């Protein structure tokens, strides 16, 4: 990503990119999150980690790997697409669906840890809680995010946070994960209107 590019439609706006986490930072965050999960959850053998596509899925897999490294047990990982459960579908064109693949053992009675890249309005998580209802009844649901950028619109809070990033609404937080974006980094893109 280059440091600035003018917007396509409005020639009067500028985009500035500011990197706030590099690959080292991200892997340290995930190691810390794994330790927090292990400390907090009573029975680690009961954990199921569910990533929300797209970037929540590779993050979920890495978190599971970190927990495996600590506890020497394998943790089931799945993905849950929430598109069909969103309450803001009518505010944008319909988009293609992502994969939903729950682990073979299901989620009934499990400690489900939902994983997403950025927590913003909370609407994705609300949709995920609804979607999960369709597949079973977990004993406990917790939320792990790499970035909490604030601006919640619903009473939802994360249990594990990689990094708190206070942002303004004209900034965009972009989490890039090497499995998808070929690089690990967190970038804040800010668009400033030039007069």
């Amino acid at each position, binding site marked *: 990503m280059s440091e600035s590019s003018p917007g396509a439609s409005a020639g009067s706006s500028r985009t500035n990119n500011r990197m706030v986490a590099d690959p080292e930072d991200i892997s340290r965050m995930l190691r810390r999150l794994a330790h927090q999960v292990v400390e907090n959850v009573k029975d680690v053998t009961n954990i199921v980690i569910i990533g929300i596509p797209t970037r929540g899925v590779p993050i979920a897999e890495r978190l599971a790997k970190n927990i495996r490294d600590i506890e020497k047990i394998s943790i089931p990982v799945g993905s849950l*697409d929430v598109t*069909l*459960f969103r309450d803001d*579908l*009518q*505010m*944008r*064109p*319909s*988009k*293609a*669906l*992502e*994969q*939903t*693949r729950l682990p073979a053992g299901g989620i009934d009675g499990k400690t489900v840890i939902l994983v997403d890249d950025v927590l913003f309005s909370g609407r994705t998580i609300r949709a995920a809680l*609804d979607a999960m209802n*369709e597949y079973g009844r977990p004993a406990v649901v917790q939320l792990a995010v790499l970035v909490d950028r604030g601006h919640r619109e619903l009473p939802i809070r994360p249990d594990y946070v990689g990094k708190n990033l206070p942002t303004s609404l004209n900034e965009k937080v972009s989490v890039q994960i090497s499995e998808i974006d070929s690089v690990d980094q967190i970038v804040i893109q800010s668009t400033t209107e030039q007069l």
Partner: protein
Amino acid sequence: MKHLLSVQELSRAGTLRILDTALELNQVTDGGTKILPTLRGRTVVNLFYEDSTRTRISFERAAKRLSADVVTFSAKGSSVSKGESLKDTALTLNAMGADMIVVRHPSPGAAHRLAHAGWLESSVLNAGDGKHEHPTQALGDAFTLRAHLRPGAKDFAGLTIGIVGDVLHSRVARSNIFLLGILGAKVIVIGPPTLLPVGIENWPCEVSYSLDAYLPELDAIMMLRVQQERMNGTFFPSELEYSRTFGLNRKRARELPEHAIVMHPGPMNRGVEITAEVADSAQSVITEQVVNGLVVRMASMYLLIGGNVSVA
């Protein structure tokens, strides 16, 4: 995409978008048995000018699986039988606030007229217009073919598919031939010359009057229903002769490659175009086609009215 009127309006990418969406919907709903909240508060009107229990039920179920409100409007016993025109019916439905109109009509082009005459703000989905097209049936068949013969593939290159029988009266055949062409399959249309439409030489398919020669090279065979109700002339000497020449029986089914699948859009005339034995055999995917029709209808509804096309 606001309307789905004809497969000929679809690109390969657009077709794959529908098939991939259907694949995920099939996965998350266990073959269309779970209910999703996606279209809550939206209204889907099934406007049926022709009797069709199967298609109507499939569309009703697809809409209900996505939590849409469904209104079914059959021409029989409605204002249409009192002489209301298509335009006035459309204006009425628009005033009632339909988000989507699923239309089945005996006249080719009826769906197109409904979509583009400026009567409606709704999306229009063609559920069969005369001998013209039936796009969701073809999409369901493509979904079935992909699941069995090319799982996850981006095209059907290298597949040979036979479409056998009454192509003249069949909108299903027409939609299938064009959609399979878009996906890059080789299509061989087989039937008596009297049941093949004029101009078929310009379609993306080969034509043959003999079934037996092609059986060993087909990856899939689609048997079409002999549509007696649309025939007002003599197209072949007798049913028995038709079934001897173009019917799929056990002997012919054995000539197909082992991996080949047998398809039929339904409803079947058992003993005419297909014998009961073949229809119920392990090669037959006929009941699966019904389920797959449902999931592609859900996918089409989601893609047409799940989002908001005016917000680009």
